[in-house]
């Protein structure tokens, strides 16, 4: 359990900031429930992954330095995305050993956690209380799964919510085809991948799709909507924080 007054810096992520503020608010709520003081450093923007994965190392190093400074002094850095936190874990690769920034990047890496794995470790799960009721299926986002080992943690947390029934989909560990800039650089291939994914989601009979990464969720929700499939997509923290009364991702303001 957390020592009293441990400070957590919330890494909001650019997608939560832009598209889904609820995800950041839900994260704050859960972290406070776990006994942390949560702050949102002003100097954060994006983790720099688009530059890093496009070969623009100079730009990604500049963003990394900014992020490292923004989160100086926090005991923990927590974000609602395996992909973005995974990127923070890549920061040491951007600096040569011996460069002081390399050490600072390693230090940030040791303090940076994806939200569900952090909660699974630090939250007294019996405190979770959510009025959510429904059949959910969970997509394992690639970076969280393979870079950070996020698999059982969100399911453990969800299992504490009485109204949640998990129906696992086929190939829950197969990429949804988002891949950052991949989805616009190779739209045809990405479309095939997200098409396969939406088929697997639909086949579960679940009414809600959950995941821990907004990139994947925007992609899958966008496809489900385009195909006219009535399944709601949400970030897992919305359920855990009992904040699922707002419209789901890509849904109209009021559902009829």
């Amino acid at each position: 359990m957390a020592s009293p007054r441990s400070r957590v810096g919330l890494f909001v992520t650019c997608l939560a900031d832009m598209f889904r503020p609820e995800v950041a608010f839900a994260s704050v709520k859960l972290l406070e429930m776990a006994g942390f003081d949560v702050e949102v450093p002003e100097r954060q923007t994006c983790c720099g992954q688009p530059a890093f994965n496009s070969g623009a190392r100079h730009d990604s190093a500049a963003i990394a330095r900014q992020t490292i400074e923004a989160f100086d002094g926090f005991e923990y850095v927590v974000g609602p995305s395996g992909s973005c936190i995974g990127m923070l874990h890549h920061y040491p690769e951007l600096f040569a050993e011996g460069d002081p920034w390399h050490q600072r990047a390693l230090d940030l890496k040791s303090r940076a956690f994806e939200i569900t794995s952090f909660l699974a470790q630090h939250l007294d799960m019996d405190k979770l209380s959510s009025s959510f009721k429904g059949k959910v299926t969970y997509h394992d986002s690639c970076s969280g799964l393979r870079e950070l080992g996020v698999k059982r943690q969100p399911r453990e947390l969800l299992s504490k919510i009485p109204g949640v029934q998990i129906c696992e989909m086929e190939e829950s560990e197969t990429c949804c085809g988002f891949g950052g800039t991949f989805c616009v650089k190779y739209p045809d291939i990405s479309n095939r991948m997200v098409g396969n994914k939406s088929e697997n989601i639909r086949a579960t009979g679940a009414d809600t799709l959950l995941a821990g990464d907004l990139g994947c969720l925007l992609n899958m929700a966008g496809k489900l909507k385009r195909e006219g499939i009535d399944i709601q997509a949400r970030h897992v923290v919305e359920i855990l924080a009992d904040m699922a009364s707002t419209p789901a991702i890509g849904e109209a303001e009021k559902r009829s």
Partner: protein
Amino acid sequence: MQIKSPEFKQNARIALQDANLQRALGNLKAGFPQKRAAAVARLPEFDQLRDEARDLKNHILEHLDLYLEEFEKNVVANGGTVHWCRTAEDARKKILEICKDQDAKTVTKGKSMVTEEIDLNDYLEKNGVTPVETDLGEYILQLRKDHPSHIIAPAIHLNIEDVADAFHEHHKRPKSNDPAHLMREAREMLRKHFVAADVGITGANFLVAETGSTIICTNEGNGDLTQTLPKTHIVVSSIEKLVPTLEDMTLFLRLLARSATGQEFTVYNTLSSGPRRPGDQDGPENFHVVLVDNGRSDMVGSEFQEMLRCIRCSACMNHCPVYGAVGGHSYGWVYPGPMGSVLTPQMVGIENAGLLPNASTFCGKCEEVCPVRIPLPKLMRHWRDKEYEKHLSPTSVRSGLALWSFFATRPKLYRLFASVGNRFLRFKAGKKGRTSKLPLASAWTDHRDMPAPSGKTFMQQWKEQNR
């Protein structure tokens, strides 16, 4: 082989619409990954073996020169000859020279991706030597004047009807769609070639330094006939296939079969250790090993060195969602899938193959299943670095990234930019919560809706709450 990697996107688009190809690829998806998973589950020490294999390969690559010299010394001691070939052309010429020395009219071939890499068949044919592929998949492809789309299942892109058509056309026999029948027919056709061939050419899965042996792992037995019946056996291999000892080799054999097909062991594991000795019942009179470099020694000591650990099991492509969607031919050269996306730029130039290392979501599945733990996404990213350094990435991508980085490194401006974008997206979506058309975003909206932001940006709302 003509390089079609620059047309990757068109190739992929056509592949996605090719119903027959998609049917064939569906078989792959259901086959190899499940068999591998079952084989891995039956071997609790599998991951430990992977660590050992990675470490051993790293050791070998650190001392590649020494092991290569030891290998040559022992091949010579066994009565064979080693030929060092820096380029694909050197290798082709050397192989032809050996064939001409033997007055060879036909050569039988076991399955070998290195001979694809050096484009051997065309060259031999142009110079009056007829190559006959004896691996069933390769044989089918040769009849169809086609190329492998997969490194261990070369004809995976075909369906049984395609095979039946090819056999009917070339063998002039009644058509049959029965796999067993087709196999018998191929066997019958190949038998006369096995006996008539003057030279047999095989690849090698591993080269064993301590004994000067080469080994092939096959499931059909065609390799055995290819290398024992003709007077001359030529092994064509690349330099990174070395292992120090026979015992080391067995470590890799255990990993290879399980990672590739989910077998505990490949059916035929055949060692060749030089020409026939007095008293031997069979074997060739002449034994040659053609060692191909073709860019590999440039990888030693570079950021791509880890790629040289590859044992060509194909697990990375079998599990790759991109390969599974578009098939191997889309990649446009010899090696497809994640391993090909790292190797191809090395061999044909990043300026020709830049689309390949970009054709990955970095989902990491390839690295997860690689028996020698090659960090394939990291290596593909290194190619993207090179591409960016050399100003080869498209201008639109570069200027987009530069603009985005400009904002991302100025938090206050970024906030402003984000709130304007946020308002625009909400305006476009109206009350629907999503939009189906967006300027400059057709790559997204052609296939899926764009969910709208659910409210002001988080940073705006957080500030308004005075927290």
